[in-house]
């Protein structure tokens, strides 16, 4: 492992010195600016699926045509593989110039001085909702600009429901009713079609449930804000559904990876962020998918909030700060970029971009959903703690062990709490 780290370090050093030598060679023009004849190349890394790959390719082409002095070399993986790669690069000092970033990892990198303070470059944030920008800021420095916002929802496939003869849900439901809905799908699905994957394994759904019960997930000083009993209650919500057709078996979920069961047409419903619509449609090939609010036992408090879907960040060590700033500004503000991505990144955060985008068909569904739950939206939760990405992953893993029958709910709660407390102590 260390070999690789050193190796990357060496490679980075080699590349850097090569670039340095190259820069020395052309003493007539400064190294930091490109021209149409000699454009500088920005490395841009992002996560996503094929759908986003195509949209990103178009956006980059557009940027390059408008900025002939900059070339953008894109590079993408899925979300899971994205972070180990960035960690390796960060250790070697070679983070890409510009990166797509997630709230879960912003502290890990920002607090450790790996990211460029975007306050030092020219990015226009006039068109942003002022309550949204702090989510990309840590200790007064801006490490990420939100591209867009999303909120949580229950997805369902109306065609599949119709084929089972089940009425479409209207989204005013409590957990008991939601479970009953999944159970009905399971009963009629006959072992080929299932309700959904176990929604209690999704961290953000748990977070929303906590908010519905007026519990904070994390305290101000970065500790857990909920108790073992809370988590026990949560994981027991689907205790009766596990092993039935209401919840797709973990064996199948694993087989279908990296696609989710919903995206591979194995389930009728799934809880997720509302910007997954485009990805789900392209992965599943379904004609139409619909969105309804998450269940809540308190009809006045759905626990929902707007979260930055993703942020644009730059490496603290980039040699092309201004160009990185221009690219980020373009990606978050340009109306044509909005037209390219539609709602696949969520609703554009910049009003300029939002107003310049026409939403039709399924994209309109996403926008309408956002509007329909607007009155329930509360402040976004505190920026997650350092190491949150690890916690989120272990939450999913431990919940999946419960579905495999390898752990009881009580055992799972103990396991997760031990890991979480260990991690919090580690990063304190």
């Amino acid at each position, binding site marked *: 492992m260390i070999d690789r780290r050193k190796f990357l370090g060496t490679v980075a050093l080699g590349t850097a010195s090569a670039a340095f030598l190259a820069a020395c060679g052309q003493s007539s023009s400064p190294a930091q600016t490109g021209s149409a004849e000699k454009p500088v190349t920005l490395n841009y890394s992002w996560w996503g699926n094929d759908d986003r790959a195509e949209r990103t390719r178009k956006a980059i082409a557009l940027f390059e045509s408008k900025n002939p002095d900059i070339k953008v070399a894109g590079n993408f993986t899925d979300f899971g593989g994205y972070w180990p790669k960035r960690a390796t690069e960060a250790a070697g000092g070679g983070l890409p110039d510009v990166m797509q970033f997630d709230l879960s990892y912003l502290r890990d990198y920002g607090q450790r001085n790996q990211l460029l303070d975007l306050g030092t470059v020219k990015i226009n944030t006039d068109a942003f909702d002022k309550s949204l920008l702090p989510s990309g800021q840590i200790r007064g420095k801006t490490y990420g600009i939100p591209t867009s916002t999303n909120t949580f929802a229950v997805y369902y496939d109306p065609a599949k429901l119709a084929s089972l003869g089940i009425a479409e849900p209207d989204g005013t439901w409590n957990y008991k009713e939601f479970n009953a809905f999944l159970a009905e799908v399971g009963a009629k699905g006959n072992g080929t079609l299932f309700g959904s994957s176990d929604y209690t394994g999704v961290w953000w759904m748990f977070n929303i449930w906590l908010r519905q019960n007026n519990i904070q997930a994390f305290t101000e000083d970065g500790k857990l804000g909920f108790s073992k009993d809370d988590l026990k209650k949560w994981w027991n919500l689907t205790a009766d559904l596990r092993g039935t057709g209401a919840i797709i078996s973990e064996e199948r*979920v694993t087989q279908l990876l990296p696609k989710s069961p919903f995206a591979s047409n194995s389930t009728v419903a799934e809880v997720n962020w509302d910007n997954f619509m485009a990805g789900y449609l392209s992965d599943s090939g379904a004609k139409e998918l619909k969105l309804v609010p998450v269940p809540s036992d308190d009809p006045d408090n759905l626990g929902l909030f707007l979260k930055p879907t993703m942020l644009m960040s730059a490496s603290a060590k980039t040699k092309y700060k201004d160009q990185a700033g221009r690219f980020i500004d373009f990606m978050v503000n340009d109306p044509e970029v909005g037209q390219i991505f539609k709602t696949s990144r969520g609703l554009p955060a910049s009003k300029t971009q939002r107003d310049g985008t026409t939403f039709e068909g399924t994209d309109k569904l996403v926008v309408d959903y956002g509007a329909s739950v607007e009155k329930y939206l509360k402040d976004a939760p505190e920026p997650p703690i350092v190491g949150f990405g690890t916690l989120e992953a272990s939450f999913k893993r431990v919940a999946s062990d419960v579905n495999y029958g390898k752990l009881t709910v009580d055992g799972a709660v103990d396991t997760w709490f031990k890991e979480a407390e260990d991690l919090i102590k580690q990063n304190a």
Partner: protein
Amino acid sequence: MTQSPTLSRRSASAPAQPRKSRRRGADARAGYTFLLPWLLGFIALTVGPMISSLYLSFTNYNLFDAPKWIGFDNYVSLFQDERFLQSVGVTMQYVVFGTPLKLAAALAIAMLLNSKRKGQGFYRSAFYAPSLIGASVSIAIVWKAMFGDSGPVDQGLSFFGINLGGWVGNPNMTMGMMILLTVWQFGAPMVIFLAGLKQIPADLYEAASMDGAGPVRKFMNITWPMLSPVIFFNLLMETIHAFQIFASAYIISNGEGGPAGSTLFYTLYLYLRGFSDFRMGYASAMAWLLVIVVGIITLIFFKTSKSWVHYSGDAK
């Protein structure tokens, strides 16, 4: 003049020698010069990182901040970490079952390919082929598809009335799948076995046939003892390789060691600790523990080898 009376005396008695040793010195210099690129690489890319990882294993290091010295804490907490213990169990299972099976397959096929038959050259290449591509990412992906739900393996077994479903998602089947994957890559030890088999004098078998020995007897009393140094070599190498399994497990489990931790091999957990959880010190401690354990196992192999490995020229 005072420094080397021996030298001058020797030069007096044997005038040819200094020239020879000077030439030897030049040879050595040339040798080291040619070795230099490798030596530099070895020191910079292997020895250096190993020393730094030894240091890091005693620290709390998150890749970004300077390492903090914490003594043996990493090593102590390893043994309180359930996932670590799970990874040890998974890896041991793989080594203990996978390695002997792989060697048995390699030996059996080597013996088949050793007989004189038409087109043996073709068969040898054909059987070696999987090992050429076996360690690659693409094969792990193919393997995953083959053992998935409704994959060829599932369908093939269903044809015989065995309904196991997909293996990839079933924690009870993944180990079997991983072991099959390694057994299938028997090529490297097979080639070495084949070379060993060719060294056994044919008259030993002829003499045994004359005395009326059957194939089992011949195998037990001629092939096995004559081949034992080669078997020992293969056993040692394959055991060490088995401890290092990473790429195929990483691909098949999407880098998570799932389902339910059933493919959480030691090196995979080490990787996750280091690069997903940013606990490089902990991962370094794991790496060094692995080095020590593999070292001890190698030592045990060498100690026990005296009782069953026969080298030609041995008194026994």
